[in-house]
């Protein structure tokens, strides 16, 4: 007679086999004394394990142990909340809509930055009441009336030049490349 494997008997005893296999083993166990005894020992073992389910270890005072564990659990949770990362702020749905204007501003800034400095652009001469002319150019600034006037020329060592005309005045700003000295000239027309 061929006996089922011990592992199969253990699964049979615990009710862990499919119905077809279980049927075959049940028929064998009915006829075979040694296998029946093995199944009985597996049953006894399972009962013993279940009986021990609620048994606490010797020497353990459960109420004290449980109180200590409860306190430590609460402490652990509190500590975890202290070191937890703050919740991620909710993403506003209109955030992507802000991106486009910001991007446009950045592009505009880059374009403006890349434009040549004011010194390279010569302001047009401004004529004020009558024949008075205010003149600003990279070469210098000046005032002229009826063919007479004066001009403040740009110093030879000047590296950075800025000239501008505002209303009835003309202004220049030079920086000496060697000394770093700044010269500002402001001429008002009357």
């Amino acid at each position: 007679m061929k006996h089922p494997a011990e592992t199969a008997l253990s699964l049979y005893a615990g009710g862990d086999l499919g119905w077809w296999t279980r049927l075959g083993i049940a028929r064998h166990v009915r006829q075979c004394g040694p296998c029946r005894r093995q199944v009985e020992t597996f049953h006894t073992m399972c009962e013993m394990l279940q009986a021990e389910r609620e048994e606490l270890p010797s020497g353990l005072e459960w109420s004290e142990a449980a109180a200590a564990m409860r306190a430590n659990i609460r402490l652990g949770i509190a500590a975890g909340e202290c070191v937890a990362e703050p919740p991620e702020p909710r993403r506003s749905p209109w955030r992507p809509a802000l991106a486009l204007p910001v991007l446009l501003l950045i592009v505009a800034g880059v374009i403006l930055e890349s434009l040549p400095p004011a010194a390279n652009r010569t302001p047009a001469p401004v004529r004020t009441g009558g024949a008075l002319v205010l003149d600003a150019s990279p070469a210098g600034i000046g005032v002229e009336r009826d063919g007479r006037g004066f001009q403040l020329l740009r110093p030879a060592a000047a590296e950075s030049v800025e000239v501008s005309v505002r209303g009835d005045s003309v202004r220049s700003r030079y920086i000496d490349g060697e000394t770093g000295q700044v010269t500002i000239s402001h001429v008002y027309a009357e």
Partner: protein
Amino acid sequence: MSSLVWPIMNEAVEPVLEDSLERQNRFISGNLRRIFLLVYRMVGNVADAQDLTQEVFVKALQRRDQLKDEEKAAHWLSRIATNTAIDFLRRHGRVAFCDLDDMPERAGSSPLESPEARVLRAEREAILEGGLETLTARERAALLLRDVEGLPAEEVARHLGCSKATVRSHIANARVKFRRYLSRRKA
């Protein structure tokens, strides 16, 4: 059945917070002994079992928003406990049980319990622990969940994150090893 176990603490106003803490305490009290015993059977050491039980509850309660109903919460807790104990056994190797003679006197036992009953109880405990010690961590977990906790094999497989066939193999091997241990002990 599908009542919320805990509301999210961040949004809690005072009564909700109190309610949440009360539920939290109820959850701990309702499951503490069961989880402690499961972990203790796995690791075989009271001090480690206490530490691991605390760890299990802290892990579970930190993710309490994942718990939707109480029935699932208990199963989920058992799963965390099993995995925590298996990880512990992997890190620390086999557990060492103390000898029967070295076992401390049962301080919490009833004064009505006779010395004979105490000895029998200690012997049963030693048999159980000795038998469990012969098993691998996974076999031990499978046997405890199936034969002590009474979970069906499918549920044990989900707990251990393996197939039903694998878990049946663990259960069968564990039962055979345990039976052989009992036979040796009797002989």
